[in-house]
């Protein structure tokens, strides 16, 4: 007794040609489980129900139109389909990641907007010093823009006088904290879900290539390297191995040198006292340099990796991700040591960087048509998102959303104009997990550690935390201001500030994790035993079949064909028959005589003469 929807889903999943499914669905429509023998009765019912069927029909049609409307809401679905069609699933994974990031940023945008920006815009603070607007401010972000809502300085920490007084400082602090917590939770959730879908089922011998044989069908991608991958490759000679190892070593040395060099360059540029705090265009030098480095160095990395040859194209992608990621993390950590002003510029600059890279790919087509470099593009996205988290400005998600929109269309255009379909297929199902894990571990955890800003003294001139020792003091002063036995104050004092609470929580979480882990181990053991059981059943079946065949063969062999004389007991006529005696003994076959018939009981078997 399934619901109507589940029933229709079950019909759709039937393995039958269309016409039979149609018949079944028509019978289902009457919600009966009568047997097929009452088919005529059903037909009569069907004709009668034709009177009331329009009601059911229109209801079903309404439900179907809801489903198709829901499809329209999935953003970019048509474009994603087209990209997947022409370039395969591994390139599609990049665009899926981009879509995921977009949804993520939209969600954070809503939170920030509701709690922080709208109150601030509605009750605009007094702008203390207004300098004239020059065009350069668009790029540098100081001066005029500094006091608007776009930047940190535009928020002041006053308490807005309205029906319930709205404390801006508290709002800012708690919103940012809640936003980070939600980000972390949703990242962990997405990661664990894709992890579970893709990795947990891989028990048993997966190193073999059998499944690859039957699942390598990625349409419109020509598998030139499939033959290499399917073969056994452990026949390299010693000199070949040494050559490969030395190439790998050289590549890693070059990579390390480049990373250190760019890190040192950025550090020296950043601490150059002349460039610190001036309003001219020279303050743009550092961001531009950083963006140039981010553009050029990965290109160099991919050139380097061309000289190495990897057995597994997936290893290639992962190693290039590791290298580029290291570079980005270094750069990010160094530049986030600086004040808010400079960091604001980076977001603008990185937007322009994307424009440059797209225009660059469109113009430079000398080395033949390039392939879409998934690793580099993913890392660009992650880098931008890291900046976003490090800065914690309320309006950054807006820029991020706009940027992602623009990037999507730019990449799509450059893809269709320039790139050819990739030569190697990757295991695209797990790539989403890897991307999200990359987003979580370096970027998010790094951003969390930068929330050490809660213990640093905030700037005195601008921002919502003017005049406090640390931003965290706002919470203390708020709880102090609450009436004596208020429940929030009590919770804060006795639970959140006591260490015992945290010990208990960690202990409980550890115990639960241990139990869950044991359950997983048990299930793995169960799977192993069941698998062995299947193999044993197969062996049993083979053994029994064999035994049966041998028995029968022996039976048949022991009965040689004989000539028998059969006599009819009615007319005593006799005739010669060539039979196998077992047939006569076991069969009830009647043999005809001219008078009547020979039945086995009527015959007398005489020994052959």
């Amino acid at each position, binding site marked *: 007794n399934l619901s109507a929807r589940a029933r229709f889903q079950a019909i759709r999943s039937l393995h039958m040609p269309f016409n039979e499914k*149609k018949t079944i669905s028509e019978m289902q429509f009457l919600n009966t489980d009568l047997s097929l023998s009452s088919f005529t009765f059903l037909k009569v019912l069907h004709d009668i129900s034709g009177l009331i069927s329009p009601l059911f029909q229109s209801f079903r*049609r309404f439900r179907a139109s809801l489903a198709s409307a829901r499809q329209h809401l999935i953003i970019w679905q048509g474009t994603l389909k087209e990209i997947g069609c022409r370039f395969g*699933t591994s390139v599609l994974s990049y665009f899926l990641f981009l879509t995921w990031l977009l949804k993520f940023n939209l969600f954070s945008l809503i939170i920030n907007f509701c709690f922080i920006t709208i109150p601030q815009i509605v009750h605009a603070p007094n702008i203390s010093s207004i300098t004239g607007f020059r065009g350069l401010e668009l790029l540098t972000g100081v001066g005029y823009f500094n006091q608007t809502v776009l930047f940190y300085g535009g928020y002041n920490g006053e308490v807005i006088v309205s029906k319930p007084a709205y404390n801006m400082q508290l709002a800012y602090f708690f919103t940012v904290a809640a936003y980070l917590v939600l980000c972390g939770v949703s990242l962990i959730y997405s990661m664990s879900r894709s992890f579970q879908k893709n990795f947990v*089922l891989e028990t048993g011998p*997966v190193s*073999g290539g059998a499944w690859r044989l039957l*699942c*390598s*069908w990625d349409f419109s991608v020509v598998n030139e390297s499939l033959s290499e991958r399917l073969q056994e490759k452990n026949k390299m000679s010693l000199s070949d191995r040494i050559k490969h190892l030395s190439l790998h070593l050289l590549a890693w040395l070059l990579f390390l040198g480049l990373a250190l060099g760019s890190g040192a360059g950025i550090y020296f540029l950043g601490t150059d006292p002349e460039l610190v705090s001036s309003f001219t265009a020279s303050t743009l030098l550092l961001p531009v340099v950083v963006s140039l480095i981010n553009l050029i160095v990965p290109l160099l990395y991919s050139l380097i990796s061309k000289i190495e040859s990897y057995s597994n194209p997936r290893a290639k992608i992962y190693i290039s991700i590791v290298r580029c990621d290291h570079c980005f993390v270094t750069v990010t950590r160094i530049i986030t040591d600086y004040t808010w002003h400079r960091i604001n510029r980076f977001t603008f600059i990185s937007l322009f960087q994307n424009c440059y890279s797209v225009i660059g790919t469109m113009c430079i087509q000398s080395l033949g048509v390039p392939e879409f470099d998934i690793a580099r593009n993913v890392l660009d996205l992650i880098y931008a998102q890291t900046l976003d988290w490090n800065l914690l400005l309320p309006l950054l998600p807006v820029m991020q959303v706009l940027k992602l929109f623009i990037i999507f269309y730019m990449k799509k255009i450059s893809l269709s104009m320039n790139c050819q379909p990739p030569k190697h297929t990757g295991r695209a199902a797990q790539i989403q997990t890897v991307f999200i894990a990359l987003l979580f571990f370096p970027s998010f955890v790094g951003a969390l550690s930068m929330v050490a800003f809660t213990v640093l003294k905030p700037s005195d001139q601008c921002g919502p935390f003017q005049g406090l020792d640390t931003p965290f003091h706002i919470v203390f002063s708020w709880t102090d201001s609450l009436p004596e036995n208020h429940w929030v104050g009590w919770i804060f004092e006795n639970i959140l500030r006591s260490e015992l609470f945290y010990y208990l929580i960690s202990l409980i979480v550890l115990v639960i994790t241990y139990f869950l882990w044991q359950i997983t181990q048990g299930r793995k053991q169960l799977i192993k035993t069941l698998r062995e059981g299947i193999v044993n059943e197969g062996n049993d079946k083979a053994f029994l079949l064999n035994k049966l065949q041998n028995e029968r063969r022996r039976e048949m062999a022991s009965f040689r064909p004989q000539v028998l004389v059969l006599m009819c007991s009615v007319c005593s006529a006799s005739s010669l028959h060539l039979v196998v005696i077992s047939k006569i003994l076991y069969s009830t076959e009647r043999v005809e005589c001219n008078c009547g018939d020979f039945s086995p009981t009527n015959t007398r078997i005489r020994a052959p003469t």
Partner: protein
Amino acid sequence: MGNKQTIFTDEQLDAYQDCTFFTRKEILRLHGRYHELAPHLVPMDYTNDPDVKIPLALIVNMPELKENPFRNRIVESFSEDGQGNLSFNDFVDMFSVLSETAPRELKAIYAFKIYDFNVDNYICKEDLEKTLNRLTKEELTPEEVNLVCEKAIEEADLDGDSKLSFADFENMISRAPDFLSTFHIRI
């Protein structure tokens, strides 16, 4: 829902929606594609259920199927006569199974039918060899092909009859999370 189209009656469209994974709009679009394949053969008016079949040679020239090494087998396994002549119902059925929303079990059943070249309900070594040759466009030597197929059967065959039954196939597919995303043709 404007009833501006005259290709199908409403009951027919409802039946298609109930039995396949497509919406109304997609079914009408599919009919357009079907008609394009053979405009002189396929009528625009399907209200009286005409019995029209398009031959295999025209269907495998569709851009969605052209690049696929198994296009002949796909069309054959969805045709009623086994020769690859598809009526519109078979056509819709085929793309419905190959669409994104079809469940894994259904796809596994049809994948098994596609790889079973000699249609004996088992994937034997010759079937695997043909599969491999189509995938690699005959670039491997016969010894390599032999080796790979033997290894594949050794790994996947659980009941020891040196050919893959549907249960063995499904067990092997369940280890490959890519299967559901690659066994998929967008139209």
